[in-house]
């Protein structure tokens, strides 16, 4: 087997050194009837065979770059510079462990420090951690953190929060007996969540742009929350939007969580992604996840270490702020490289190209009979009400080679009034021909 260096002579020599008669002598503690179990699995295969078998599965999927593509709702198709994937495949990054030995892990530690700086700057916050699994788990952790800080039990979820984010947060909170109040579906950002904030509220969780694409002004919500001693948790599922929009920090958020996939990371059918998590300096000891900090070495040179591990499970055990251990190391690197290449000048341009593509797409689609654009504001995603069941329209367009967006029923199956909704995203990858193809196929499907 190509991954195993020993030959049988090596194995025999080693057993002799150990003083064991055979390999199973080393497994003596295993119940005999459980040892050397049978498995209904094939034997080893060569590289060519494995590659072919998995290649056959891969071509049964439709890649985003195969044709006109307009799906978003929490994961976005962007162009990733070739440099990113090249660098993250370097052995020194790819095959390194968590940087617990800082002397020989400055490469990882420095990019984590750069990542934290980038995330904090983008979010308009003071500090950020070294990543969560993804945006949705970060959202759950943020709610738990707000409970720890405020020592209150109630969490308000906006009606514009991505339903999957809401579900993850509920799963986390209900375990510890917290009260979760979910606002109803809010298509045009008109909900009155402010009036629901009271003195029992730990936090209110609001997404911008929200799952329907509306750009939300968080300032009044932050003010209301703070007036009641509650925190505002802001959620950003499209980090590219921060090149065009006011940051949550500017609008008064106390914790900002986000999905960082858009920068540096592929769609990967949902994972691995990279959760962004930023907050105020004063809350750092309540933060979940790894943190990288600056320090000096024995010769006084600048260096970086994982720090504040007294919050973490491997030190603090049952008193930890979170059970998180592994995070999204390599995905943070991809994010950091892409962001470093873009710089803020590039990010701003990229954001406006996204906005333009969405505006053009919306203008083209809104002209079609049976299509109503619901958004007053949006960044690179918006919601349409169609004259037909959106799931069926999406299937029809997929047959025509256009991946048209996310039907409302997929995210909100319990809402009958969501059945005709279609959430459409457009990024810099969308060409005028793509828009034209989408429009004409949609018009056909609705006629």
């Amino acid at each position: 087997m190509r991954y195993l260096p020993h030959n049988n002579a090596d194995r025999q020599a080693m057993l002799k050194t150990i003083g064991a008669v055979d390999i199973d002598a080393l497994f003596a503690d295993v119940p005999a009837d459980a040892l050397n179990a049978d498995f209904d699995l094939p034997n080893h295969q060569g590289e060519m065979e494995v590659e072919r078998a998995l290649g056959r599965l891969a071509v049964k999927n439709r890649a985003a770059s195969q044709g006109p593509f307009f799906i978003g709702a929490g994961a976005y198709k962007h162009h990733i510079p070739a440099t990113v994937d090249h660098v993250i495949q370097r052995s020194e990054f790819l095959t390194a462990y968590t940087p617990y030995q800082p002397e020989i892990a400055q490469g990882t530690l420095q990019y984590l420090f750069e990542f934290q700086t980038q995330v904090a700057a983008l979010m308009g916050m003071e500090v950020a951690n070294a990543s969560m699994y993804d945006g949705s788990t970060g959202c759950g952790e943020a709610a738990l953190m707000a409970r720890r800080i405020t020592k209150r039990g109630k969490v308000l979820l906006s009606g514009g929060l991505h339903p999957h984010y809401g579900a993850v947060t509920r799963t986390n909170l209900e375990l510890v007996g917290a009260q979760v109040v979910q606002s109803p579906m809010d298509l045009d950002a008109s909900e009155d969540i402010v009036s629901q904030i009271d003195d029992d509220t730990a936090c209110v969780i609001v997404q911008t742009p929200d799952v329907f694409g509306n750009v939300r002004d968080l300032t009044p919500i932050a003010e209301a929350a703070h007036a009641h001693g509650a925190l505002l948790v802001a959620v950003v599922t499209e980090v590219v939007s921060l090149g065009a929009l006011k940051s949550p920090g500017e609008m008064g958020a106390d914790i900002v969580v986000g999905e960082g996939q858009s920068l540096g990371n592929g769609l990967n059918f949902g994972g691995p992604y990279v959760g962004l998590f930023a907050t105020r300096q004063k809350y750092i000891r309540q933060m979940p996840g790894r943190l990288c900090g600056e320090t000096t070495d024995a010769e006084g040179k600048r260096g970086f270490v994982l720090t504040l591990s007294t919050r973490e499970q491997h030190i603090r055990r049952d008193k930890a702020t979170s059970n998180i251990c592994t995070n999204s190391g390599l995905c943070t690197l991809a994010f950091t490289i892409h962001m470093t290449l873009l710089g803020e000048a590039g990010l701003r341009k990229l954001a406006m190209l996204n906005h333009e593509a969405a505006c053009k797409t919306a203008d083209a689609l809104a002209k079609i009979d049976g299509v109503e654009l619901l958004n007053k504001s949006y960044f690179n995603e918006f919601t349409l009400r169609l004259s037909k069941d959106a799931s069926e329209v999406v299937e029809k367009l997929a047959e025509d080679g256009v991946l048209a967006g996310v039907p409302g029923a997929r995210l909100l199956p319990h809402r009958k009034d969501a059945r005709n909704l279609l959430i459409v995203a457009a990024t810099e990858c969308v060409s005028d021909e793509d828009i034209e193809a989408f429009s004409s196929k949609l018009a056909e499907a609705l006629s």
Partner: protein
Amino acid sequence: IEEALSFEVGDLSGSGVDLQEPSGEYDRLGGLKRNNMIGLPGLSEPEAMRHFVRLSQKNYAIDMGPFPLGSCTMKHNPRLNEKVARLPGFADLHPLAPESAAQGALELIDTLAFWLKELTGMPAVAMSPKAGAHGELCGMMAIKAALEARGEAGKRVRVLAPESAHGTNPATAVLCGFKVESIPGDGTGRVDLEALKEKLGDDVAGIMVTNPNTCGLFERDIRAIADAVHEAGGYFYCDGANFNAIAGKVKPGDLGVDAMHINLHKTFSTPHGGGGPGAGPTVLSEALAPFAPLPYVSLEDGKYGLVETLHHAEAEDSGETLGRLTAFHGQMGMFTRALSYMMSHGKDGLKQASEDAVLNANYVLARLKSEMTPSFDGPCMHEALFDDRFLKDTGVETIDFAKAMIDEGYHPMTMYFPLVVHGAMLVEPTESESKRELDLFCDALLSLAKRAKAGETESFKAAPVYAPRRRLDETAAARHPVLRWSPPQKAEAAE
């Protein structure tokens, strides 16, 4: 050579990405357009390339040499896995693409699930947990959901875990609203069965045991433990971090396990990547299977589907799900890699790999015991545990010994874990190391041990010397946390 932070190199107008000029015609941003600077410079592509290549050269990695981190299973990462994970059909597939456009991906998840169930001898698996600790959370949530279904969630609030448990175990139990209680060891590095039995009762939700355990030993009484817990009405959560010792050799399902997460990034070699991403699919027993989280893959008339919401699950008559753990379907990128690894090994190769992993650990144990002090007698599983008795009176501590290994060209072993052993050193070579590498490694450690005993304390305290950095001041870092770069003060800028 020192490498500046990227923020100290670039300027705010720079960019290493060529984008078309936006027309500037559109603004439908609801009056919320950003009007301040973000403060992030951009580097040209050559500058960025050098920056990150130079940074990488400050890292140690498996591709450079042994990485004997106990409990972490740092094994060879085949590049075939990287290649297949990057096939556009997988890497460029949207999680909310219509099911008809994702049949291959769903089949892959289903196939990997089959392998995991077969290898563990368990009837069900939850695929969405994003890492080991997340898998633990999934398993303990399933236990909580099962208790709720039995109406006992309010009553059964205690979870038992050995002293030697991973820190994630108690942290996870607490996240689920349980109280954690420690089970003492039996002096041979294993759980004390009698002590465990005494702690059982009708307020116990279950136990969390790692097997092979964190002392590198197989829990001889594993079935008796499982039986006792089940008899007391509790569930058996098994921490699967050490599955690499027995994969393809022993089915945990045969030992009475109710739930176990599988670290695809350990046992099945998806790269650690400097601390992630991982993946922690969690296998479940018949008793816990109904509570599996959303989403899951279904198969009907040869077509794969996804059950994504409670609404949908109820329609499918499986409405007891514990809910959703993450936005989408789990770590697909890791699934592809892990399945590629499993298919490459096959059942014969996985068995051989586990045997070689155990063989290598015992070989290290046998070669080092003359100078170092194994904590327990007898053979170990896939990791060898030493304590610091051999350093007694030398002034050299475990950390010094470990840092001295850096100067010999090795990554240190796991230190000070498990907590049950003083100054623990947990060595896990994995099956990827050749006899030649192991011999060089053992020679280096034996020589270090001799030097420590010979009184070369100073050089140990000074280590590492041949590393990009000398020892770093972790106390100062924690006392005055500097967690991000800030632009130089105006005073400095004005100089």
